[in-house]
């Protein structure tokens, strides 16, 4: 078990290193290969009235003229030890972990990321709680009452949930529940949990449900398929033969057996989601990481885009690691290997 954990940890660290290289390459190497010059890179930071001289100055200041290895080294050093940025008027600190410094808002990216993560985390946790509960419950009931009206209805809704895009369901629910009925908060009214938990939940309930709808569908189908399989397993028959109440048989034996793929998918979904639920956040104007990324892309704010990309990749790697570890908890057979 210990070696298993250590192996996974080392794998995760290597993965993060690769992620940092790939991210760096995407933002600095690929544009160069595509013909961008240090000046044209700098023009993104230079505003639209910039003269060629200004662009050159900015390119020098941002170090775009240095060899890529030096730039990567500076990037990694910033992550580990922090770095400084010359804005032309002053030297600004970017303390570790320095995920970049935006020349458009003149802010280090990391505090933004931390700030935005709170929103995304709030969104993800609430939505995940709903979709796991609703999806798994619907899946279990569907499987147990296979072919019943409930099963058909639930699977029909699930299909709709998977196929309908969030901006569609989100917009419809906003128009209906918020603008027409006034039941839920309109978009863009997020209140932090620490300020007022009730307001927090009120402002997020619609995004939660919308996002959960998308995911619950998948989990319902996955659970149903898994349950159909496990409920036919010999060990479920054994559990019944022991005289266990049906609830225990279904939950403790049937569902537990169907849990492994759900845990796997959940880990990946959740990790991805932490990197930003772009559509949901845009639709509901939640200032989370996804919205941050979209806004940064719109404004051509590369350091922010890169920061979010890197952080999102970290989330996925960490989620993968946790899934691997959970695997061992869920399925004792994994611990041997």
């Amino acid at each position, binding site marked *: 078990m210990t070696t298993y954990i250590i192996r996974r940890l080392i794998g995760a660290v290597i993965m993060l290193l690769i992620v940092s290289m790939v991210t760096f390459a995407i933002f600095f190497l690929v544009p160069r290969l595509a013909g961008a010059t240090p000046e044209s890179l700098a023009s993104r930071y230079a505003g639209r009235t910039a003269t060629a001289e200004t662009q050159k100055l900015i390119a020098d200041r941002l170090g775009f003229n240095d060899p890529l290895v030096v730039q990567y080294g500076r990037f990694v050093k910033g992550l580990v030890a922090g770095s400084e940025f010359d804005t032309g008027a002053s030297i600004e600190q970017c303390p570790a972990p320095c995920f970049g410094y935006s020349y458009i808002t003149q802010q280090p990216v990391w505090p933004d990321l931390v700030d935005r993560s709170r929103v995304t985390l709030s969104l993800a946790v609430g939505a995940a709680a709903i979709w796991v509960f609703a999806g798994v419950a619907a899946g279990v009931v569907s499987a147990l009452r296979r072919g019943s009206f409930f099963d058909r209805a639930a699977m029909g809704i699930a299909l709709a949930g998977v196929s309908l895009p969030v901006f569609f369901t989100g917009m419809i629910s906003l128009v209906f529940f918020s603008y027409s009925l006034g039941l839920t908060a309109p978009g863009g009214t997020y209140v932090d949990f620490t300020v007022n938990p009730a307001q927090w939940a009120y402002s997020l309930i619609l995004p939660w449900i919308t996002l959960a709808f998308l995911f619950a569908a998948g989990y319902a189908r996955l659970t149903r398929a898994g349950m159909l399989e496990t409920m036919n397993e010999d060990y479920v028959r054994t559990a019944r033969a022991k005289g266990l*109440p049906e609830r225990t048989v279904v939950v403790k034996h049937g569902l537990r057996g169907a849990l492994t793929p759900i845990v796997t998918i959940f880990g990946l979904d959740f990790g991805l989601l932490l990197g930003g639920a772009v559509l949901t956040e845009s639709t509901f104007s939640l200032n989370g990481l996804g919205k941050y990324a979209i806004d940064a892309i719109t404004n051509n704010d590369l350091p922010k885009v890169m920061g979010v990309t890197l952080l999102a990749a970290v989330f996925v790697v960490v989620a993968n690691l946790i899934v691997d570890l959970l695997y061992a908890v869920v399925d004792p057979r994994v611990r041997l290997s």
Partner: protein
Amino acid sequence: MSVGNGGSAGHLAVRDLSIHFPTDDGLVRAVDGLSFTLERGKTLGIVGESGSGKSVTSLGILGLHKGGHARISGEIWLDGEELVSASADAVRKLRGKKMAMIFQDPLSAMHPYYTVGHQIVEAYRIHNQVSKAAARRHAIDMLGRVGIPEPAQRVDNYPHEFSGGMRQRAMIAMALSCDPELLIADEPTTALDVTVQAQILDLMRDLQREFDSALIIITHDLGVVAELSDDILVMYGGKCIEYGTADDVFYRPEHPYTWGLLGSMPRLDRAPTERLLPIKGSPPSLINVPPGCAFHPRCPYEERTEGRASTEVPGLLETEGGHLVRCHLPREERRAIWENDVKPMLETT
């Protein structure tokens, strides 16, 4: 022993049990009008090919078809309680306590995610109000009694950490944990190595004596039955076609199907693949059971019934002293065939 019309005070009495499953293709008559009784301390072997309805019978007795879409009729009496008409919950409470089951493949029959000990404790604590610690001690004790070495350590192992034979021992420990009055073993040795098979059978015989339970062994393997059973019930197409003491069935079998089974029984003095009296064809579909005698399409003596075999369902009739046979052939003719044709072939080889 009286079988067929019930009424006797057997510990387990099954009367006219039918279990039918409606399907899209038609009604599956998995068990059709089955009756037998069994006393505590006695062993009944139910023998038949796969699809003959023997496993459905055992699950039916345990009430595991309840709540599904099976149509069950008849009566099952266990220790004075009727189970077919009882509520699902009432039967559930008897399961594991008064009647327990050992399944064919212990690897798939035990939950891979829980320790062996946990699964025994779970079975025990459902029916006994004891602390976890006490249940655990009981589980260790049970594991010891079924011959698992170092039970105090093995109790925390997962099923995949056990060998096949050990797993079946653990399975037996689990089944016996509540000291059931009726134990049903469905092909308990099929998935095991031959050497382990013998050990398990010995163990079951010993434990049955020790616990004094009634035992039903379900198998397609007459060899297993021969070792353990007091009585034997041969099933074909969902019906009992021969019933009697082990001696009756082994030494004086009267049904052509039983002869076929005996002929295909592996013996040390014969090559295992060799079949002396091959049963031609394959078991009948339970949806379209052949009219008349279900066995007639495969029966080598079908023409001797003058067509009755394909039109008239033979009754299960007593030939002597509780030995029941379902066959159109006159008794004398059956005996003559056995004595003159079949038995010599089995013995001479």
